[in-house]
């Protein structure tokens, strides 16, 4: 018996069967690859955190060994979670699970409910390092990064920035060493322990003035985004450090 493939019944049947088959294939594929994708995200975060503290390439850290290396340096059980006033509201491993990018985007989440994790690590020499995650807006999309402070909770030991879709060669340069190195050795608070604002400048004065950082030529909006991101985040953490230091 020949099937009339132009009949309405066949057309509907064909569409339904096809959608079910493709749906099952795609769902099982997505489900099957899920553990790998989740691991990729976790490992990427670990590498990003470590790269604020050290040169991960020099230390031979890549995706394959990131998890063991991460646990060697970062003590997750010592990590703390702060609220927007810099008060401690949580402690321990849960800090790693906080998705600050999601919280930053979430318009329904109230400012007072946002959480700000702080990671505490030890570098190769055994000195304490404080790693602050930051997130902000670039020209085209989100930018984020980690700022690592030295034992004095004041001097920047290193930063790692990254972006989603900034213009290559211009704003995208924020994740290049030449830009990230400009932040090193500058201090986030004054002698009172209060936060002082950073300024991303165009006139090359960043090399001499510790509260200024030279921006990227042609990447003004992204540079300003970095400035806003760093100032907003560090202001919160400086409050916490002030208390922690006085203890």
């Amino acid at each position: 018996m020949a099937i009339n493939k132009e009949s309405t019944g066949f057309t509907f049947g064909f569409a339904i069967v096809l959608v079910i088959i493709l749906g099952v294939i795609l769902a099982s594929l997505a489900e099957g690859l899920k553990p790998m994708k989740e691991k990729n995200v976790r490992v990427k975060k670990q590498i990003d955190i470590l790269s604020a503290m050290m040169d991960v390439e020099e230390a031979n850290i890549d995706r394959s060994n990131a998890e063991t290396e991460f646990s060697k340096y970062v003590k997750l059980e010592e990590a703390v979670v702060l609220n927007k006033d810099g008060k401690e509201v949580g402690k321990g491993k849960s800090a790693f699970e906080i998705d600050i990018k999601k919280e930053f985007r979430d318009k329904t989440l109230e400012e007072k409910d946002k959480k700000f994790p702080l990671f505490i690590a030890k570098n190769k020499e055994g000195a304490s390092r404080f790693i602050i995650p930051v997130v902000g807006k670039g020209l085209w999309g989100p930018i984020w990064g980690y700022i690592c402070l030295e034992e004095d909770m004041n001097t920047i030991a290193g930063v790692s920035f990254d972006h989603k879709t900034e213009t290559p060669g211009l704003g995208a340069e924020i994740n290049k060493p030449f830009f990230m190195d400009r932040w090193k050795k500058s201090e986030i608070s004054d002698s009172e322990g209060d936060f002082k604002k950073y300024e991303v400048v165009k006139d090359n004065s960043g090399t001499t003035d510790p509260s200024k950082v030279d921006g990227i030529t042609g990447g003004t909006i992204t540079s300003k985004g970095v400035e806003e991101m760093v100032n907003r985040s560090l202001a919160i953490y400086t409050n916490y450090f002030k208390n922690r230091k006085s203890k």
Partner: protein
Amino acid sequence: MSADKKSSEPLFSKKNKKLITDPLTDNNPVTIQVLGICSALAITVQVNQAIVMSLSVLFVIIMGNLIVSLLRNLIPSRIRIIVQLLFVASLVIIVDQVLAAFLPDLSAKLSVFVGLIITNCIIMGRLEAFAMANKPWPSVLDGFGNGVGYGAILVLVAVFRELFGSGTLMGFPIFGNSLPGSESGLYQLGYQNNNLMILPPMALIIVGVIIWVQRARNKALIEEH
């Protein structure tokens, strides 16, 4: 067409070879049919990205052509476009998921553009114009030809853009170190990367130049007005 005739036709007959070579030259999907321009602008800043994008498109177009060709006598003609779209979308999701699981760094760089393969008119064009009316093997060859034809232009554009925009190829510095303060090679002599190369308009200009060169060499391609 009898079964005998089909089996006697060699896999790479003259007609079949033409299916591969035509899209590479005189019927190139990008420079002649001017399709797939959107992605040619977006992911040709670096050669690596262009290569992965080309391979992804190649996979989607070959598999899409094959599946549609196998089912061509079964697909109801009233919903054929949406059925083709379903196949393309599913294949693209497979590529996207596999990249995210196995090549996470590249996947992050390509971001939405893998998903946008769905909207690449070359693929839908080949499914509708060729695979719906031809046997599986010629369809696979046609997909291969068009995929490579697209990829070749993509990589060519990317070579120009990465070389003159960033001074690198596949991420390796070609002209020396361009970092301010520690210049070497050409940069020491005052050479500077061309930032315009990195911006999307330059991809259009390069594609335009390629089209110009191609039509200048083959007068048959010039349309009469």
